[in-house]
């Protein structure tokens, strides 16, 4: 047996580095969060698995032609996967609460402030402009948008940014309440809001996805893929004429793509490139983006409240950050903690849906500003 063969046989053990060991631990933590804590398991589990498989010594899965490489090329490099997931999200989202309450839409705009605030911070720390924009996009608080934008502007940071986006999104029920309580008075949190009358006609439900696509597509061409995919799914849903396609988008396609997306994202978390100071910075900036988003949403809602003579509950503002539909539930919960009879959920759902739309538009705006600069 030649020395070469022996080396070949031992290369697994000799190829172990401290980075791979740390990454195994990171994968373990993600698995723990996913399985034991039920935090976004649909994405964190595949991400953890991809991370583990990619960091095994000399893993053939990330070599040319390896499974993870193939999945990455098939759906991340060309942004196929995040967009298909958006079609599925669109097919599952009911924009009814927003359409009954169109004024909620501006709350969604306010909830994107964290994107830009954190971008400035990242610039000051020393990240390049595209990197700073990619880190800021964690503030979209929307997985596919974060992946799409960072893949375009700074693919080298895709791993940490996706992990930050999905992990924090899973932690929204823990992150939001303290910020909300800090920025509102008990009296504000007790404001009860009336429900208007309007049912939403079928026509409105059909016009909405087409109008949003046309509007965003014309005003911010870079947002066409994100907005267009989301609205395509929603159009199929509301048309009620293509149940087969709606169902396939929201189930078979979404499931397969989620698995592949998670694995491919996980495979970008290679120890040598992940275990660097910038990853820590990104994790720190990411949580800041969340807090800034929430704060901006609440402050904007307070402004509305001031103008409307105290009839608008500022908590609703926190639902504008996206993280659909979790943020709306947290708002309901915090409001109920003060006044068990208060029921702002449907208003919060409207603001939340607006945040979802605004996030995709903001993603397009970021791309437009940084593709040119």
């Amino acid at each position, binding site marked *: 047996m030649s020395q070469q063969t022996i080396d070949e046989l031992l290369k697994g053990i000799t190829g172990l580095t401290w980075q791979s060991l740390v990454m195994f631990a990171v994968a373990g933590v993600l698995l723990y969060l996913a399985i034991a804590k039920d935090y976004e398991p649909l994405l964190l589990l595949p991400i953890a698995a991809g991370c583990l498989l990619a960091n095994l010594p000399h893993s053939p899965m990330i070599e040319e032609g390896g499974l993870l490489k193939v999945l990455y090329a098939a759906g991340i490099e060309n942004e196929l996967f995040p967009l298909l997931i958006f079609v599925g999200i669109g097919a599952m989202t009911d924009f009814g609460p927003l359409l009954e309450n*169109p*004024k909620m839409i501006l709350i969604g*705009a306010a909830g994107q402030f964290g994107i830009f605030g954190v*971008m*400035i911070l990242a610039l*000051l720390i020393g990240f390049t402009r595209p990197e700073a924009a990619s880190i800021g996009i964690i503030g979209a608080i929307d997985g596919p948008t974060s992946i799409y934008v960072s893949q375009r502007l700074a693919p080298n940071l895709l791993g940490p940014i996706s992990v930050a986006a999905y992990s924090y999104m899973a932690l929204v029920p823990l992150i939001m309440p303290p910020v909300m309580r800090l920025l509102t008075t008990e009296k504000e949190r007790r404001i009860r809001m009336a429900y208007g009358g309007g049912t939403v006609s079928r*026509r409105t439900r059909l016009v*909405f996805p087409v109008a949003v696509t046309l509007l965003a597509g014309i005003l911010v061409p870079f947002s066409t893929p994100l907005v267009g995919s989301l609205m395509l799914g929603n159009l199929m849903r509301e048309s009620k004429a293509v149940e087969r396609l709606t169902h396939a988008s929201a189930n078979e396609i979404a499931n397969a793509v989620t698995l592949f997306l998670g694995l491919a994202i996980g495979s970008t978390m290679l120890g040598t490139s992940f275990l660097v100071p910038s990853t820590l910075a990104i994790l720190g900036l990411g949580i800041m983006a969340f807090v800034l988003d929430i704060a901006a949403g609440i402050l904007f809602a307070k402004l509305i409240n001031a103008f409307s003579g105290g009839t608008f509950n500022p908590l609703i503002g926190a639902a504008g950050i996206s993280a659909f539909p979790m943020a709306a539930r947290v708002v309901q919960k915090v409001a109920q903690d003060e006044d068990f009879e208060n029921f702002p959920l449907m208003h919060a759902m409207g603001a939340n849906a*607006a945040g979802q739309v605004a996030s995709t538009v903001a993603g397009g*705006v970021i791309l437009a500003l940084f593709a040119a600069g």
Partner: protein
Amino acid sequence: MDNLLFGLQTTVIGMGIVFSVLAILWCLLMLVVKLDAWAARRAAARAVADAAAGGLAADPGSEAVPPAAAGTPLVRLVGAPDGLDPRLIAAITIAILRHEETRRLQAAPAMRSYWPGSLLFASRWVAAGRTRQGQSWRRRR
């Protein structure tokens, strides 16, 4: 410094565009909602007019067939038989609409909503045809 300036400028422009796009969308949605309300009112008005013109026999006091919301096709009883109980008419109307909906889901494919060859489509026609033929093919055992 340069970066801070760039960042602030970008923030102002970026948030400005986001707010603008959503504000336009807001106006648009308000317009659609207005249109909806107007369409609903007009449909209701026309229904009443039609009813008057067509001589709706159903007891005007009954609310069996109220002016429907926008988008809901209005049932117009043109020349309905005099003696019928309005509640009976309402029940029949609902049954017919129900049947139409079922038919749409099952048999829509006069317009081929379902895939060619789909059992969902063929069942009733083929069942009839097979029955006439008096023969059916046997499942594999």
